[in-house]
């Protein structure tokens, strides 16, 4: 909200600089986001009197002027044809910033410097309207009123001395959505009572009640409706002071009636509306809800469809305003209006909010009504407006305010305990101190028992409803920064504190393997997310199509990241992510949380080359075995040997080949190469290998409790074996036979070579294994090992049709 310093000073005297006021209001909870010092842009501009004009010796079109600028007389070279002795003009002194250079095609601003123009010294510039940004006339200099006093600053001459503050008012402080409201807070700072505007009415003898009637049908939504009637007013533009004030706080002046209602709104925070009395059929105001589907054209010229929830102001025949939101085009004040009805009502905040939301229409009025206005000042505000309208437009103010107020509201009394106030804030105030703190913000309180005070909540503070609200006000007025800063936490260290350790450990380990961590936003575009082939959780009001559906897998968003990097010339990628996926249970109703399931996943991505091109190491494209190695290392680190790979053929999956991972016998994830068709869809023409694992599964298999097993006392013996088998047979079938038959002496089997080609024929392959033999209780003899080898060779031959190579 914009607040004018000059306007505030009508209600409270203060001498703060803009910086000081910014700081002080902010510390009271009225955050000043910025301020504009209007005088600043007129710095170094003064009113000057041209004492004499002489022709420039070296230029026909220029003249040399002697200008009195108040304290000194300056030489100023001027090119304008209309400059003449005796004129009062605007002089830009050295250092002045000319907002618009009329000789520059783009009108760029420039700063006045001491200059020699054709060898004649010039100490400033006499300005045109255009150069000052005050008008469009560029034909000559701006000539001021002859009464202007030389030396007066231009800001003062123009009356542009205001400072305008932009204040962020939190939703609980509806009372501060006005100049009087902000002035009340300043009053707290300077410890002064507010100077409230005096309303002196010049009423005619004719009673308003004879000319208009108010009926409230919906007393819930409209507890109070007040009005005043004026006759024979003359509509015209508002005077400059009013236009300036409104303009300074961002309100566009319209005419001397609408401007006054806006003025009173900005002054008191109470929204008003003026109707053209003669357009009101039956000269009646009826407050009731609309019919479902009813149409209505608001002041902005738009047709609105109403519901039976929408509260409307109507005359005897038709709706004339959406209550508290916007008036109708059918009854607005026009140039020909002469008789006026001023509405000043109190509407139920929730009702106004629903209407404003439903219509998608937020106005200065609805903004305040939905936050809560002061029900007690409806007549006051109407009177205030009536008085000023009468002053500005003439006319006759009919006697008496109309006021429909079926159920008078009693002031709210809130109990607050001194002990509670002190124990929540952590201070030790006496009862009397608390009462006096509250008094500073016009909140009356009195002692009711030893530990209790009764607080009478003023009607403008509709945020004070219970004890905790009073506690906050005490803390605020006491000053947050006066509250001691202390720590004496009573922490129970005996219970096991959960600290998300596993994710952090996995992350650190994977970073150690040289992966770069990525983080993607859960919301992505629907088309890419559908790649994972699962029902999507979608936003019903997405920000954009790019962020419309939640991820069901981390793979599709990772492919977009791969694509992004490839577009920027980065091809070799080792990426990982820890993030949530979101699944939809289509069997459950979508408006319960049961329909949604979230799970944390770990993603690994490999693409491009296995190592950067460098001397001493051969780079090659990564393959699925690179990823398998990483996955194996990760699983072995965290789950030891509680995992296994499942080699299956799943046409549905994102990968081809796709290898499943089981931890402790439960499905934990998969890895493989992203299907070519899928990569194609994203325009990625390179193999991408991904692994997606459930964090929970790793957690469940996490072998944290490790037990030491004693180291072998006798040396191991290495032997190699090579077999030729059918090329189609997986090596694992041979390895499994070796492991099984080799027990217990053969303790490790490593495939160290695989060959298929000329020597074997392509239908065959040769597998070479290194076997380690070891016994816990003695050094093995050759005979013992040879016996085992013999059994292995026989078994491989029998079970895998494997031929021993020698």
């Amino acid at each position, binding site marked *: 909200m914009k607040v004018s310093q000059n306007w505030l000073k009508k209600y409270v005297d203060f001498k703060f600089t803009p910086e000081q006021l910014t700081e002080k209001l902010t510390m009271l*909870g009225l955050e000043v986001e910025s301020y504009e010092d209007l005088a600043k842009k007129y710095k170094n501009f003064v009113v000057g009197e041209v004492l004499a004009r002489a022709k420039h010796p070296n230029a026909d079109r220029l003249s040399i002027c002697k200008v009195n600028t108040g304290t000194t007389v300056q030489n100023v070279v001027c090119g304008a044809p209309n400059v003449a002795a005796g004129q009062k003009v605007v002089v830009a002194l050295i250092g002045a910033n000319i907002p618009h250079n009329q000789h520059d095609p783009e009108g760029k601003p420039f700063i006045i410097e001491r200059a020699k123009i054709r060898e004649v010294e010039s100490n400033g510039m006499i300005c045109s309207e255009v150069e000052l940004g005050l008008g469009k006339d560029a034909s000559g200099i701006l000539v001021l009123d002859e009464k202007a006093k030389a030396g007066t600053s231009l800001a003062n001459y123009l009356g542009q001395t205001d400072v305008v503050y932009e204040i962020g008012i939190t939703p609980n402080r509806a009372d501060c959505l006005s100049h009087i409201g902000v002035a009340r807070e300043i009053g707290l700072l300077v410890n002064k009572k507010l100077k409230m505007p005096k309303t002196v009415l010049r009423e005619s003898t004719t009673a308003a009640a004879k000319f208009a009637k108010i009926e409230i049908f919906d007393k819930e939504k409209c507890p109070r409706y007040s009005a005043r009637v004026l006759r024979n007013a003359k509509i015209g533009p508002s005077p400059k002071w009013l236009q300036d004030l409104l303009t300074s706080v961002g309100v566009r002046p319209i005419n001397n009636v609408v401007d006054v209602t806006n003025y009173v709104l900005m002054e008191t925070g109470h929204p008003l509306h003026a109707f053209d009395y003669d357009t009101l059929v039956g000269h009646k105001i009826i407050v009731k809800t609309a019919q479902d589907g009813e149409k209505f054209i608001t002041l902005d010229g738009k047709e609105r469809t109403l519901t039976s929830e929408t509260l409307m102001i109507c005359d005897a025949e038709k709706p004339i305003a959406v209550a508290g939101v916007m008036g109708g085009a059918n009854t607005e004040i026009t140039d020909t209006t002469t008789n006026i009805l001023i509405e000043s009502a109190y509407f139920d905040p929730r009702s106004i909010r629903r209407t404003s939301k439903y219509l998608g229409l937020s106005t200065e009025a609805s903004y305040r009504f939905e936050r809560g206005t002061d029900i007690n000042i409806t007549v006051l505000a109407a009177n205030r407006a009536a008085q000023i309208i009468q002053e500005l437009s003439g006319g006759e103010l009919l006697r008496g305010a109309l006021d429909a107020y079926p159920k008078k509201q009693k002031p709210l009394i809130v109990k607050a305990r001194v002990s509670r106030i002190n124990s929540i804030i952590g201070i030790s105030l006496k009862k009397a101190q608390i009462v006096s703190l509250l008094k500073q913000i016009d909140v009356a309180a009195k002692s009711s028992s030893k530990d209790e005070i009764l607080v009478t909540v003023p009607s403008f503070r509709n945020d004070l409803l219970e004890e905790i609200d009073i506690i906050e006000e005490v803390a605020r007025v006491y000053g947050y920064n006066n*509250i001691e*800063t202390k720590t004496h936490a009573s922490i129970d260290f005996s219970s096991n*504190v959960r600290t998300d350790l596993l994710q952090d450990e996995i992350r650190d380990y994977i970073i150690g393997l040289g992966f770069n*961590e990525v*983080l993607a936003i859960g919301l992505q575009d629907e088309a890419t997310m559908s790649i994972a082939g699962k029902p999507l959780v979608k936003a019903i*009001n997405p920000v954009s199509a790019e962020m419309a559906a939640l991820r069901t897998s981390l793979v599709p968003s990772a492919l977009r990241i791969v694509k*992004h990097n490839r577009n920027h010339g980065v091809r070799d990628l080792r990426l990982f992510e820890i993030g949530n996926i979101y699944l939809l249970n289509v069997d459950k109703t979508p408006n319960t949380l049961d329909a949604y399931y979230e799970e944390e996943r770990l993603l690994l991505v490999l693409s491009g080359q296995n190592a950067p091109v460098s001397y001493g190491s051969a780079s090659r494209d990564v393959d699925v075995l690179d990823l398998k190695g990483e996955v194996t290392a990760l699983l072995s680190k965290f789950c030891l040997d509680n995992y296994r790979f499942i080699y299956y053929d799943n046409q549905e999956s994102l990968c081809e080949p796709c290898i499943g991972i089981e931890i402790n016998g439960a499905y934990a994830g998969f890895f493989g190469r992203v299907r070519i068709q899928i990569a194609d869809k994203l325009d990625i023409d390179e193999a991408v290998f991904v692994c997606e694992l459930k964090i929970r599964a790793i957690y469940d298999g996490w072998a944290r409790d490790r037990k030491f097993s004693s180291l072998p006392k006798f040396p191991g013996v290495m032997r190699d074996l090579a077999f030729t088998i059918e090329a189609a047979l997986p090596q694992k079938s041979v390895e499994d036979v070796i492991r099984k038959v080799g027990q217990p002496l053969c303790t490790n089997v490593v495939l160290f070579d695989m060959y298929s080609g000329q020597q074997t024929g392509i239908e065959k392959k040769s597998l070479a294994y290194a076997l380690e033999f070891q016994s816990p209780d003695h050094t093995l003899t050759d005979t013992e090992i040879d016996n085992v080898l013999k059994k292995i060779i026989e078994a491989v031959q029998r079970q895998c049709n494997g031929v021993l190579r020698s």
Partner: protein
Amino acid sequence: MLDKIEHTKQVFITELQKVVTLQDLEQVRIKFLARSGEIAVLFEGMKTAAISEKPALGKALNELRQCTQAQFDEKKSSLEQTAKPKEVPFDLTLPGRPKPIGTKHPVVQVMEEMKRIFISMGFSVETGPDIESDYYNFGALNFAPDHPARDMQDTIFIADKILLRTHTSPVQIRVMEKQQPPVRAIMPGWAYRNEATSARSLVAFHQIEGLYVDHGVTFSELKGTLVAFAKQFYGSSIKYRFRPSFFPFTEPSAEMDITCFICGGKGCRVCKHSGWLEVLGSGMVHPHVFQAVGYDPEKYSGYAFGMGIERTAMLRYNIDDIRILYENDVRFLKQF
């Protein structure tokens, strides 16, 4: 005979001194040390010597053999050293075999550091779902239906009353529902707002929520804890201030500002010329929130706080456009 031995020795020494090449040396070897060389001949001659002379002769001959052999070896090794082609020294400036360097996402780095500080102060870490109900995100947190406070957080909906959480505060409710006081937890995670993407805002961002509930927790202690955190995170010399604010689920509510560490409080573009940076929102847990989770507000009090991570990361790493954080450009990620 002994003279002859001595003479042979002198001749050997003289000839060895003349040797320049390995070929010369070989000639010397053949002449003296070979199987039929002069020294072997002398040994042969010993056979014919008188028995009484034999021990002395044997000793002298053995000495001769050892001495000549030693001198020969020495000469040979010295010649070989000089004769060997000079070896090219290893080029130590060759690059090491490259290893990939892993990096942690900057947002995660900031979050981990914050977590570490709070864990050291006895906070546990809790999490909750991103897809939430209106009840957990608003209702239980004292956001009345049809209240303008809801405008503070533009919401992305999944279905009627189902939404993407707009803050991490619903986790407070979940933690309190399953646990009796004392509760001392932080709750990091994603939050979502229906805001257009720009250099300053994104549809999703991270928050860390904090909660402490026990007997006799005061606003004063809230200040103490958060100041302790800020001094550890931003540096012990920072200045700070608490100013009144509004959150429906806390009262009294406060925002905490610290002196802008970009300009030192003089005012700059980053702090919008105020000299202060807003670092977190906080307050005393509202009694209505306690009622919603079945805690007795007369028995317990507590504080809660929340802070955004991205802005902190941007300030720390001098990043001026929030969008780059989630583009996941490897050239960006590798800088951290």
